[in-house]
């Protein structure tokens, strides 16, 4: 397609610059060049700013000793930065995995309760959802941490049948000892994201056509059977994609562990920068860690999602 201006000057050099196709290519080339120039300029400034600081360039810092201990971990200050990051990655994974499981359990329970026969249970579930969903997650984490601090000391720990023991230092759960920062972060994330998942669960159950409920009732299924065999399996398909987003968001929110002194990878990164690790490289490592977590979770659950979807003609 050529513009009227192009027709008049056909054959001349000017015509080339009025051609939309040429302009499109040219515009993109200019944009890429501008981006590359900006990147080079920033890199130049960065190098000029960090030249006179030792240990600020390259990746050698990964092998330097950290100079600090990590609470609740078998880690000495003489061990290299590399190992500290690995401790952080494991802690992030531990909190995210348990948080996802608990949040799902809470979400399904509360979501189902919001549709129960009992007015009291419905209102209680609504209250939980509307309170938790509308406060910042950092506040939930800080509040949980502060509340756990008001528990008695370990010598006077609360006990529950000898299997569960909780104090302001640790939670002993069927023989497993969990430190309080971990408990605070994981419980808070489960409560917060559980309220979001509850809304997804409720929406998905309501999205199952009413005829399914009626048919199940007509077959003589009880309330629980109807839920277990008819509604939840179909709701699961509808609700899985938004739930995956909640899982991703929960994993990223483990980075708020710093607020309760939990040694997740972000708060260790923060401490490493304070202990003279180069900021840019440390943050790049953090970003790579989170991108790997995000991609793994999307991959696993999207495979599940694909297997679950109905195959249509």
């Amino acid at each position, binding site marked *: 397609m050529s513009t009227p201006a192009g027709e008049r000057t056909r054959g001349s050099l000017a015509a080339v610059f009025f051609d939309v196709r040429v302009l*499109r290519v040219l*515009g*993109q*080339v200019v*944009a*890429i060049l501008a*981006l590359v120039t900006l990147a080079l300029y*920033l890199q130049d*400034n*960065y190098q*000029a*700013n*960090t030249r006179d600081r030792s240990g600020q360039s390259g990746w050698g810092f990964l092998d330097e000793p950290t100079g600090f201990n990590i609470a609740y971990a078998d880690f000495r200050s003489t061990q290299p930065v590399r190992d500290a990051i690995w401790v952080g990655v494991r802690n992030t994974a531990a909190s995210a995995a348990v948080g996802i499981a608990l949040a799902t359990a809470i979400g399904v329970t509360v979501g189902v*309760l919001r549709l*129960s*026969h*009992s*007015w*009291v*249970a419905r*209102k*209680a579930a609504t*209250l939980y959802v*509307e*309170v938790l*969903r*509308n*406060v*910042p*997650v*950092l*506040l939930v984490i*800080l*509040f949980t941490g*502060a*509340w756990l*601090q*008001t528990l008695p000391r370990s010598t006077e720990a609360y006990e529950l049948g000898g299997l569960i023991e909780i104090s302001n230092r640790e939670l002993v759960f069927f023989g497993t000892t969990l430190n309080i920062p971990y408990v605070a972060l994981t419980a808070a994330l489960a409560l917060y994201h559980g309220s979001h998942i509850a809304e997804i669960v409720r929406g998905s159950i309501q999205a199952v056509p009413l005829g399914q409920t009626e048919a199940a009732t007509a077959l003589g299924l009880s*309330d*629980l059977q109807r839920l277990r065999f008819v509604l939840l399996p179909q709701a699961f398909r509808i609700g899985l994609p938004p739930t995956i987003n909640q899982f991703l968001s929960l994993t*990223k*929110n483990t*980075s*708020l562990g*710093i*607020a309760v002194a939990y040694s997740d990878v*972000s708060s260790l*990164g*923060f401490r490493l*920068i304070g202990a003279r690790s180069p*900021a*840019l490289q440390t*943050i790049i490592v*953090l*970003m790579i860690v*989170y*991108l790997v977590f*995000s*991609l793994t979770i999307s991959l696993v659950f999207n495979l599940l999602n694909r297997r679950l979807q109905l195959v249509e003609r």
Partner: protein
Amino acid sequence: MVGIPAGFPAADPELAGLVPPEPEPPRFPPEARLTPRQWVRANLFATRAGSVLTVVFGLLVAYVAYRLLWFVLVSSNWEIIRRNLRLFMVGRYPVDELWRLWTALYLLVGLAGFFSAATAANVEQLARAAGRDVERPGPVDGLRRYWPVLAALVVLLSQTRTWTPTLLTLAGGVILLATRWLGRRAPGLARFAWLAALVGVVAAALVMDGPGDAEWSKWGGLHLTIFVTVAGISLSFPLGVLVALGRRSSLPALRAMTVAYIELIRGVPLVALLFFGHYVIPLFFPNTVEPPPALARAMIVVVLFEAAYIAEVVRGGLQSIPRGQYEAAQALGLRPWNVTRLIVLPQALRAVIPAMVGQFISLYKDTTLLAIIGFTELLEVAENSVSQPSFLGQRLHTVTFAFAALIYWAGSYTMSRESRRLERRLGIGERT
């Protein structure tokens, strides 16, 4: 004659969204009035499982309510809130300059009152011109819509030690009522609402940016929280729309750049990006140039972060526009930019209003993360005030956090209710 009814310019894209569709006459059987006894049977003890749930949750709710009342009325010392209320609200903003904040508040309240009333009157007028009945909301509707914010305001004012803040707040209420009264009489000015919002926000920011500790980079408390939220929304929204258009563009280089940007930002937590803004961005500036203040760097990060999420929301809307809309617009001879501006974007944005408000709410809640890199916004004040000498070692964290939670909750809950209301009024998500 087939066509548009007289006096009803149906082609106006703004109007298409604002006038609710004519409701169908209800076709339900007449509602059965339950006696209290029947209601209890139907809603509390309908089935055996339902009865168990009622008893269990009845006890649970009673226990939680008892603990909550005990916490609020008996066990907690709210003195820390009373003594630090100004810190919670405006951080270290100097007392002598507080008039700036009240002036800015009155300006915004006045503009909001005037233009909300003018817009409502305008919509009413158009609906009446189309021959529809209009229900005018009364003051009770206002109370019902904004009760969380009003309740939080009452709690706030109950913690003040002098009458001045209460009187100044009441003056704000009078301004609101007066400007609403004026606005109802000027429906024609409704079309300037966006311009007024822009001018109002900029003017308010200029008034509030005072000398010394009143400088904008030193703001704190709820004031900072609201500033970051409003500035963040107004900057990240246009950027997000542009990025979404870039992602749907037919230019491969542009598409690749926007996809890389969106996916990179969305894969990383905001905390890591805030660290980046705090530590690394200053290193990108040449020695000869003073890097921007810490708050500006945090704002850059917040805007870039939210824009990536908003772009994905807008993309959802863009994808929901049928091809025929593009083709029809092109057939009318519109230029590509006008196809987007006049036909596609208005429909796409309208379709994603609920998701967009959800994103704004999450920005409001995300401002708390500024506490982690050392800004004294509302949550940081709640965390810090307990280590003041007179309150040290009294475990008042739960008290200050509960107070901050009330304020965050009131704002967020009101926004989410308003979004649901808008959703219903625009008929989004209803299958027809």
